[in-house]
């Protein structure tokens, strides 16, 4: 009797909790977030993340404007003195690119190519952006995980690959991507750069190819030559209209990240560095009123001594344009293309035109982009210190100086110019006395999370030091 009662009780209680395994599994699915998304949604997200990382001037994220010595810091001068570890800057740059850009792009590609939809324009668009992000990684660190990267739980500690080998593969990937453009579906309006204009993507892909080739001129002239000539023959940017850029929006989180640092923060962390104000003052550069504010008086531009504590009030401030939340973000522009072509001519690569023509076009375009009047631009170009024929120094020094000046607000490219052209002259950081880094040191968490591979890579590049050079930087 008792036994029966008990059995019934237990039976009832089991029924009460009588959830099947399927019911239980259903409880474990989060109803608030999607499990299936489109390639387009991932692509937009990755694009936005890429632009944000390249544009940012948050000291935790991106300190290239400091490395390029366009800007310096006012009170907290650690980053200008090349302290990368305190704020884990390499880690943040690395994880943004791998995790928030490249993985989402890889996932987008998987979705876009499902069901036999391979080799479409979609895939081409995604691949081109991937190549862009990979190149930034290599140019920042040198050898990085590549073949074994982005494999999630399959490979948790990816091996690093040789930077030069990655470059070769990136060129191949780019060629492959370019061949897909124009076939099958495109990404439509989710492409916030060109709204899937195939011709623009072709030009972008080729301009990127030109950029990759230009990196290689000092180390592998043969590969550089084929890459550059192929790109130029296929058609690179022909005007600023072709630039790979986006317009930011007026409210967070879609504002230009510079606005966050310069305006919304209410802080005065950055001022132009004396490195750029000195060079521009010498050249009487008409872009100064756009690059900088004339807060010290009309025509007065005094940058802070690079790496030294500087009073905000007694130095020149950053220009008004960069205080606009909707200010454009740029991945690649016509100015850059033109300077790369100028260099190609000097390297003896048949790209058409003369170095001077490309050089002059580049400067002119930069002037126009920044809103300098045609007359001022012409005066500047006519001056003996600027005119390609009369300007002092080697072609590297001439192109290096103007290329660097034009890349203001594109810190990463400015830093590239310095590393590649060894021009113009930069300052050692005042506080630490350290010279300009040749690369970012690897993220500190790679030292613990991926230790063996980090050690191998560090040895391979000549030590995980700021002064170890990227393979294309031979001088």
């Amino acid at each position, binding site marked *: 009797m008792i036994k029966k009662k*008990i059995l019934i*009780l237990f039976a009832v*209680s089991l029924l009460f*909790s009588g959830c099947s395994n399927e019911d*239980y*599994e259903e*409880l*474990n699915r*989060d109803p*608030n977030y*999607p*499990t299936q*998304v*489109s390639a387009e949604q*991932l692509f*937009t*997200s*990755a694009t*936005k993340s890429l632009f944000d990382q390249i544009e940012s001037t948050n000291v935790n994220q991106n300190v290239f404007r400091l490395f390029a010595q366009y800007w310096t810091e006012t*009170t907290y001068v650690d980053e200008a003195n090349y302290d990368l*570890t*305190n*704020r*884990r800057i390499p*880690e943040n740059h690395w994880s943004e690119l*791998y*995790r928030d850009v*490249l993985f989402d792009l*890889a*996932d987008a590609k998987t979705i876009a190519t499902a069901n036999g939809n391979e080799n479409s324009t979609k895939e081409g668009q995604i691949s081109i952006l991937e190549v862009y992000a990979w190149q930034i990684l290599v140019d920042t660190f040198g050898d990085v995980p590549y073949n074994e990267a*982005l494999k*999630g*739980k399959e490979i*948790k*500690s990816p091996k690093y690959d040789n930077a030069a080998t990655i470059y070769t593969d990136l060129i191949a990937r780019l060629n492959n991507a370019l061949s897909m453009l124009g076939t099958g579906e495109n990404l439509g*309006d*989710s492409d*916030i750069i060109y709204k899937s204009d195939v011709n623009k993507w072709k030009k972008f892909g080729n301009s990127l190819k030109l950029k990759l080739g230009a990196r290689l001129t000092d180390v592998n002239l043969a590969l550089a030559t084929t890459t550059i000539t192929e790109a130029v023959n296929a058609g690179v940017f022909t005007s600023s209209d072709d630039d790979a850029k986006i317009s930011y929006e007026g*409210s967070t*989180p879609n504002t230009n990240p510079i606005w966050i640092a310069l305006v*919304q*923060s*209410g802080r005065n962390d950055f001022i132009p560095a004396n490195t750029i104000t000195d060079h521009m003052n010498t050249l009487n550069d008409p872009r100064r009123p756009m690059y900088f504010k004339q807060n010290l008086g009309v025509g007065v531009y005094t940058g802070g001594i690079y790496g030294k*504590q500087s*009073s*905000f*009030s*007694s130095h020149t401030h950053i220009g008004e344009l960069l205080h606009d939340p909707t200010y454009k973000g740029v991945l690649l522009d016509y100015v850059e293309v033109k300077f790369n072509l100028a260099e190609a001519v000097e390297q003896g690569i048949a790209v058409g035109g003369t170095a001077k023509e490309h050089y002059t076009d580049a400067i002119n375009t930069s002037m126009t982009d920044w809103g300098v009047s045609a007359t001022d631009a012409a005066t500047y170009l006519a001056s003996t210190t600027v005119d390609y024929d009369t300007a002092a120094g080697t072609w590297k020094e001439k192109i290096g100086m103007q290329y660097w000046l034009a890349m203001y607000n594109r810190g990463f490219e400015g830093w590239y110019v310095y590393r590649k052209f060894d021009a113009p002259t930069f300052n050692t950081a005042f*506080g*630490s006395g350290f010279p300009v880094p040749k690369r970012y*040191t690897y993220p*500190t*968490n790679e*030292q*613990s*999370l*991926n*230790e063996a*591979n980090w050690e191998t890579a560090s040895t391979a590049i000549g030590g*995980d030091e700021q002064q170890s050079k990227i393979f294309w930087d031979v001088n």
Partner: protein
Amino acid sequence: MILTLFMAFVVQLTFAQQRTISGTVTDENGLPLLGATVVISGSSTGTSTDFDGNYKINANTGDVLSFSYVGYQGQNITVGTSNTVNVTLQLDNTLDEVVVTALGIKRNKKALGYAQQGVGGDDIADVKSTNIMDALSGEVSGLDIQSYNQMGGSANIVVRGYSSLMGNNQALIVVDGTPIVNETGSTTDQKTGRGGYSYGNGAIDVNPDDVADVSVLKGAAATALYGSRASNGVILITTKKGKDTSGGIGISFNSSHMIGTADKETLPKYQKGYGAGYGPYYDGPGKRWNIDHPNYDATNPSENLTVLTGEDASYGPAFDPNLNVYQWFNLIPEWGNYNQTSPYVAPNSTANDFLKASTTFINSLSFGKSNDKTTFRAGYTNMKQEGILPNSEINRNTFTFNGSQKFGDKLTVYGSITYTKTEGLGRYGTGYDGRNPFQSFRQWWQVNVDILQQKAAFDQTGKNYSWNMYGPGYSNPLQPHYFDNPYWDRYRNYSTDDRNRYFGNASLDYAFTDELNLFGRWAYDSYNEVQEERIDIGAVDVAEYRMRNNIVSEMNYDLILSYQKDLNDKLNLDALVGWSLRVQKWDRFSGVTNGGLNFPGIFNFDNSANFLTPEDTYNYDATKKVDGLYARASFGYDNTYYLEGTFRTDRSSALPKANNRYNYPSISGTIIFSKLIDVEWLNFGKVRANYAQVGNDLDPYNVFRTYGIGAGFDGNALASNPNTLNNIDLKAETTTEQEIGMEIQLFDSRFGFDVSLYNRTTKDLLTPLDVSNSSGFSSIWLNGGSVENKGIEVFVNATPIRKDDFTWDVKVNFAKNKSKVLSLAEGLDFLQQASVQGGVTIGATVGEPYGVIRGRDFIYHENGGREIYTVDDAPSSSWVGVYKRTSASNHVIGDINPDWTGGVKNVFKYKNFDLSFLIDIQKGGDVFSLDTWYGYATGIYDFTVGTNDLGNPIRNSLADGGGVILDGVNADGSKNTTRARTDLYTNPWGYARTPNAAHVYDASFVKLRELKLGYSLPERLLKFSPFHRLSVALIGRNLWIIHKNTPYTDPESGLSSGNVQGYQSGAYPSVKEIGLNLKVEF
């Protein structure tokens, strides 16, 4: 002991003359009992018997004498007319010390095959702490309680070390059978020092005044019946019940008032020689001034200088009473001294004067009764606390009711409910954030600032006039630069919170027969909390309003059929089978305004400057179910041998379908060897051993991959992969533990110890393991490895003195735990726990203890000396004379795990007085301080001024004979003789020039944790009063840090409970609390 305490309540009020009562206490065979306790109930008067079992005590007619002896049933005898009272105590086979074990099952302690340690309610409630868990600190061996000196903040509760690693390590807390949700609700940012408030852990809602006793189950065998969550140990709390109130009417009132002040040893000591600035980088004399004031005249360059108000460091010019300068308060238009200069001198009040005394009032009233059929108790407690920071307050009201009723012989119904309402105002901001005043006070500060003038500025203008205003030369000279006026911050950027919580249970107990019993219980715990955080317009940070609403509930259903039978004269069986279901629900929402606020002082989402996007809101709705079946059988033989086995199987909805069931067995055995050896001095002796496995699951939603939704851009929807990769192949983790122990009571139980040795291994750790970000994820959910915790726990009790009216009891706790990571998931080298500001990582690789601190180290010469840069090998001139540091950041520079922890409690009783104090000890364990990392660079501390070996001020430039010679060696091993400059922030002490290792400190401490001096009104006075019992006590908490090695801080002052320990940033000082406690019973 518990029995005598209980007896103390059962007292009768009578009137009589005091006289001497004497007699003999014998056992059932007529043999005298040595050391039996005789206590007058309701008083602390007591004595014990001598070798012949004789005793003498002064008592009044009507007093109840309570006789007790370990292993025997106690007896109460009311003093009548006779002056002789002889007593025979019966051997107690059933009562002994009954303790509460898993699932609320009451067991005889001596039969337990695992470690259990109890704490009496008075030990918790006598010396008030607002978090019940704080009151357990130092009381139980192997129970590591840490709190962080934040008003109402969380307590970290870890038993036998960290075993689950990245998951939850907090012990399960059960109140009268109801598992209590003990989540902290702290954000990851808060736990890793990136700012935020600590709103306390869930167990804070258990009211110490309602607690009768606490039982701590440490090992897996003790807790295996609880299933999943028991792998971290269980703290079982039994609340007070109504009791037989013959002699009183059952009302008790308890009031305490405490006042707290910050312990000066845990506060910065500021230098008084130099004011604002970072070094000789500016203008004016010595390049240490702002010369932008309109009155500045370049022809008189030492007049009308302005302090560098915009800089948040103290490497400026030397104070000089003859030098009149513009200071921040001379720049305020509303003030009388506007645009006048003032002498540049050290202030009267430092930042430490920002703190005020804290006050805590706790009043509780309860009423309870019981008789054969009915028991009930109702209680109300109000706790009102003001913290040491301005505008901080917590108000908590607790109502509790429990009761039971017997229906006939077979059915007993029990029910309880506790309702707690907590309202908080101005919780302390934590970590590296502007809401934490100690971020500034310890790291970025100007010692020329008189904090009380900051108060005056806020009080008189209501504006955010900060010491750190930009100053002349800026377009916005009066705006704060990096830091707000701390008073403005406390009053305008405050948090509020409100939590309504209900917990309790209802149960039925039905006895089919004497042997067979069915027990059913529904236990519930639910709360709804709202947390609001504000930053007003005008602050340095973008104004915002943030709101979180958490609705959390947990229901536990249990059905247990138990069977007890004496199988023969000697062998008895105690068995049960049970079923349980746990249903947990979370419904969380949090939102924050986007891009600032439109109207000042208005805090709601309507006031958001921009639309809210997916990046501003967070939704989490989840339900988790775990059902289980379990069985236990325990055999006892001759009250000497015990053998117990348990088995449980669970199914969890949070695990993947294929692996959602997991089983765990346990077995334990006990031999009471004192039964086998007949030695007089051995009162009790037992050995025990056990083996158990406990499974553990995880939180919901870590199995299936979901995408994050981004803020729309240019009309497009954004989706992205999460930073943590979920995993469909997960399975339960398993903790296996072996434990052996011995318990001995000697010399009439005047000395005893209980020692446990354990070895617990957790394998298949369910962990979101941090991985190289190049994998595409920051972390991946994995069964990530295995970790071992080995340790020893010792509890010693002694009674060095036991005289008629004087006793001295000592309790000592000691625990040592060593953890080691045994293996990690394939392809992984390192288990990363946290990566924190300063370039420091906390984690472990295989073979290391869990919780190793890594960062940049000194470079040591082979002779052991720390190498120093000389002119010849420094990378630049600014590195000359400072320590070299490694370029890699993966050097082991510390270990957060203590070598051992312990506590010593002394209780002295003299007549009606009692004095007790608890010393809490931690040996070893390291902590990295972001406070000294930055603060040593900004020159605010006392040691950054003074004179050097040459007799010159060290703040002079090297050319003027300043600087210091560090203790170190040159590259060739010879003693360092190179002077490092110390006239600016890149000094050889702070972050700019030191390795992380220079800021790792030994976290050892010896603390006087609790002190109580009590007095109970004797019977002869009570009888003229309306009181049944009255006692007063002087009480103190954290009164004295007897020893520590961390400079300017409390080694315990970390951020929050959880797995990220060993890191300090913006640490709060320890608060010394002293007060009075009054207990009255009617």
